[in-house]
């Protein structure tokens, strides 16, 4: 694939900035009353304004302004009291007016930031502000938290789609679908603060999480609601200067973002190490070949002839409106995470996992409230529940399990009526079909056996069946104890409480519980 040697990252540093286009969650379009709906027949969500019929005028959807303000506040940015819509002029069949209405010199949101967390590979030597080593669980990775600047966020309208499918269009013709034309977007532009594909992906995840938390966007990449362009340059490690950058357009998945940045950085390194020079250009990414290629050189770029749109008056925002929106802003991921650590005593890692989405965080809090065992709830959700979701390839809202059900299950375990092992056996069925955990436990005869005479009987049986092993333990070798425990658990069909079994075995063979 490349002749850049594997250790090129020792010599070169990547400098990455991302431009994200995210569809805003509104009922109607940015400048027309047509609905914002996905999956409709072509041209079924189109108003004369979207068609750019002669004589029509744009009227700003105020809901968009509110959502843009929300984002501005959530990323600690300045919401400008005065911003301006401009026309970006170019010809394309899916751009009905011959210009896109966007914000150019005066965007609504400027100078914000968000914090990302990246897992550090052991060899990584990146220098962030704080490093945290997880102590409570061996599996928790070492992470780096880093603040990423956001230059600006501005409001603009989406274009339609050109359809070149020969079956639909017939022959060499192309068709136009304007359902998407005029759908409101926020373009969110980061500073060139990202240093690796991994950081870029972490930034996108953090941004998407915020957008969803505050109800600004569903940010569904598959529906084209969340799209990313990446600006990439390289520089010798230790240098503070910015190299010539290229822009990779239209990256449609997190995986592609990471791959494309990596591929582009390698392309640049090879170019430069062969004595060449990076030229400012727009790049495309081919996921099949995992390669970037030049689409258009900067010197051939369109002159968009931006000028303020005379059909729209400057957007003025009253500071009182900003404060009112601030007051109603929901708790943001970082705030929630800090609260989970403090209020529930969760590890930073678990708190981070639980607050990755607002729904998951709510699921946790409801479960925790119902069973009064936050750590157990956190464990069930971060391990078992997320694994089930991943295996089944479903979303949280698609499963039958409710926080009340999970809380019921946890209560059974906490009270000793159900062993963890049997609870784990019930869990997939609860996820799939729901139900009352206690009734299911009883129905399947899984209630824990805690009656000591019953347990003693199982213990006697196991010792009798394996006299050699019992003798080893009596002679002071603890290793086979687990084997006998397994025999007892098997005999009890998993219902015996393991602690009680261990204690009974030890007393019977050693005469003590130590």
């Amino acid at each position, binding site marked *: 694939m490349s002749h850049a040697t594997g250790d090129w990252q020792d010599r070169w540093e990547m400098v990455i900035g991302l431009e994200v286009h995210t569809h805003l969650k509104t009922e109607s379009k940015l400048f027309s009353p047509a609905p914002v709906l996905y999956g409709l027949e072509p041209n079924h969500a189109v108003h004369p304004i979207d068609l750019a019929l002669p004589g029509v*005028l744009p009227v700003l959807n105020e809901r968009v302004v509110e959502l843009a303000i929300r984002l501005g506040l959530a990323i600690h940015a300045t919401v400008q009291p005065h911003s301006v819509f401009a026309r970006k*002029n170019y010809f394309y069949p899916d751009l009905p007016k011959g210009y896109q209405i966007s914000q150019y010199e005066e965007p609504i949101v400027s100078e914000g930031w968000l914090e990302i967390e990246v897992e550090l590979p052991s060899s990584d030597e990146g220098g962030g502000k704080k490093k945290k080593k997880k102590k409570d669980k061996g599996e928790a990775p070492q992470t780096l938290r880093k603040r990423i600047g956001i230059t600006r966020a501005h409001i603009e309208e989406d274009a339609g789609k050109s359809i070149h499918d020969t079956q639909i269009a017939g022959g060499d013709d192309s068709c136009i679908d304007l359902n998407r034309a005029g759908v409101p977007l926020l373009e969110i532009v980061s500073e060139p603060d990202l240093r690796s594909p991994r950081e870029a992906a972490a930034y996108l995840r953090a941004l998407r999480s915020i957008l969803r938390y505050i109800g600004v966007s569903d940010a569904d990449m598959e529906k084209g609601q969340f799209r990313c362009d990446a600006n990439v340059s390289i520089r010798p490690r230790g240098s503070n200067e910015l190299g010539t950058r290229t822009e990779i357009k239209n990256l449609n998945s997190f995986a592609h973002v990471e791959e494309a940045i990596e591929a582009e950085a390698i392309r640049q390194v090879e170019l430069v190490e062969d004595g060449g020079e990076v030229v400012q250009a727009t790049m495309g990414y081919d996921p099949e070949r995992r390669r970037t290629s030049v689409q258009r050189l900067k010197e051939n770029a369109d002159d968009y002839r931006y000028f303020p749109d005379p059909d*729209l008056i400057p957007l003025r925002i009253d500071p009182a409106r900003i404060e009112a929106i601030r007051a109603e802003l929901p708790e943001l991921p970082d705030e929630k995470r800090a609260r989970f650590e403090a209020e529930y005593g969760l590890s930073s890692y678990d708190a981070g996992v639980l607050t990755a989405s607002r729904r998951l965080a709510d699921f946790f809090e409801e479960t925790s409230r119902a069973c009064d065992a936050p750590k157990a709830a956190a464990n069930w959700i971060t391990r078992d529940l997320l694994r089930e979701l991943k295996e089944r390839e479903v979303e949280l809202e698609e499963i039958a399990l409710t926080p009340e059900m999970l809380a019921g299950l946890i209560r059974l375990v906490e009270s000793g009526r159900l062993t963890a092992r049997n609870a784990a056996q019930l869990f997939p069925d609860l996820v799939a079909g729901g139900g009352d955990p206690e009734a299911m436990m009883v129905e399947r005869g899984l209630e824990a056996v805690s009656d000591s005479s019953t347990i003693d009987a199982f213990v006697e049986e196991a010792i009798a069946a394996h006299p050699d092993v019992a003798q080893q333990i009596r002679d002071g070798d603890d290793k086979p104890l687990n084997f006998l425990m397994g025999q007892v658990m098997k005999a009890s069909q998993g219902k015996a409480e393991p602690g009680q079994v261990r204690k009974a075995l030890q007393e019977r063979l050693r005469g003590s519980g130590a």
Partner: protein
Amino acid sequence: MSALHALGVTELRARLAAGEVSPVQAVGATLDAIAARDAEVGAYLEVFADEAAARARALTDSGACKALPLGGVPIAIKDNICVAGRRTTCASRILRDYVSPYTATAVERLEAAGAIILGKTNLDEFAMGSSTENSALGTTRNPWDRARAPGGSSGGSAAAVAAEMAAAALGSDTGGSIRQPASFCGVVGLKPTYGRVSRWGLVAFASSLDQIGPFGRRVVDCAQALELIAGYDERDSTSLPEPAPSLCEHLDGEVSELVIGLPREYFVEEGVDPGVLVRVHEAIAVLEKAGARFVEVSLPHTAHTIATYYLIATAEASSNLARFDGVRYGRRAERVEDLQELYERSRSEGFGPEVKRRILLGTFVLSAGYYDAYYGKAQKVRTLIRRDFEQAFERCDLILTPTSPETAFTLGAKSDDPLSMYLSDVYTVSANLAGLPGLSLPCGFSDGMPVGLQLLGRPLDEATILRVGDAFERRTAHHLVQPPEAP
């Protein structure tokens, strides 16, 4: 008693309201006049004879006519203003067969007031011109002299009203396109304050300058039309929140407490037809005699208005006309090889030379590297021009000027000299740059052709210029002179 089609809106309404005349009679007389005269004049691109007659019949039968402010009044619409189910051609080949699915707010309001739409009138293609000669779809002649131009770009609407083929008409004014043809055709034309009338349904030429306004044969007719079409429209973000003004009740003939400004820079002899200046000075004398006081004011940036106007107007036009690309509607070139050819040929074949010239100029002035020197600078000068007027209005209540430095010129006289055509807008463009209301009304004749008097008011103060125009009309008889019948 005048024939029905020769009556002004107010006079006609008085008879309709009294039941002396029915809508069928009023509309019928006007349609007859169109049938008799328009082959000569060419004011209309399309006449809705059947539909207008049917509406007049319905209004007559329902009896609703009496209560409606414009019930039964026949009105013409410039063909860059949309009427649902009708072609809106903008006098361009590119839109020759384009039918609008919706109606402009101004037309909607006229229809709600009972007006009957007679048809669509000719204009310079996309309202770009000062003679209506840039129409790709027909020639309009001046009713006072068929060898001369009616002015433009709303030449068809002005000619229709002058030739008594409509009681009133709507036009649009971007740099004088209502006032100059009103002046050339001897009728009254009003360009309202920018934002006073919704632009929804007006095909944009230069969005920050365009404004719809009425033509009439009397000042009061324009006042009444404006009362009905003005006012906020949620479909136009640039429409002003102020409610429609009450205007007619203030037309009391009084001017004695008013101070009228005469801009020093506009009263120069160079480049102005002496016959025009004579009539304007006579008008000043009439108003002075009526008690108005005159003061000289200065508009120091006058020398830059034409340049500023053509930079801003062409820049906006180059963007506004990008939508005519042959993709969704309008003319599409046939047998094209690729997208580039589709654009090039559709637009090359669809637009006329003046439109192409302005698109090229506008594209240039917005280009990277030229924006600051041209468009950016023009916006700054525009602010200075607006400030000139603000300062002048500290010393006077309104400003009086000629509407045009000349009377109607011969058809073809300026066709090969676009610059001289641009310069004839010298007195009118400043009102568009400053967003002010402007009225043109007849003030006599020079060599047998009408001369127009222009009154410019403070923003939103159409009331004062209409009041002064009406007071002038009451003291003079120019508006009573009718154009000669066809030879």
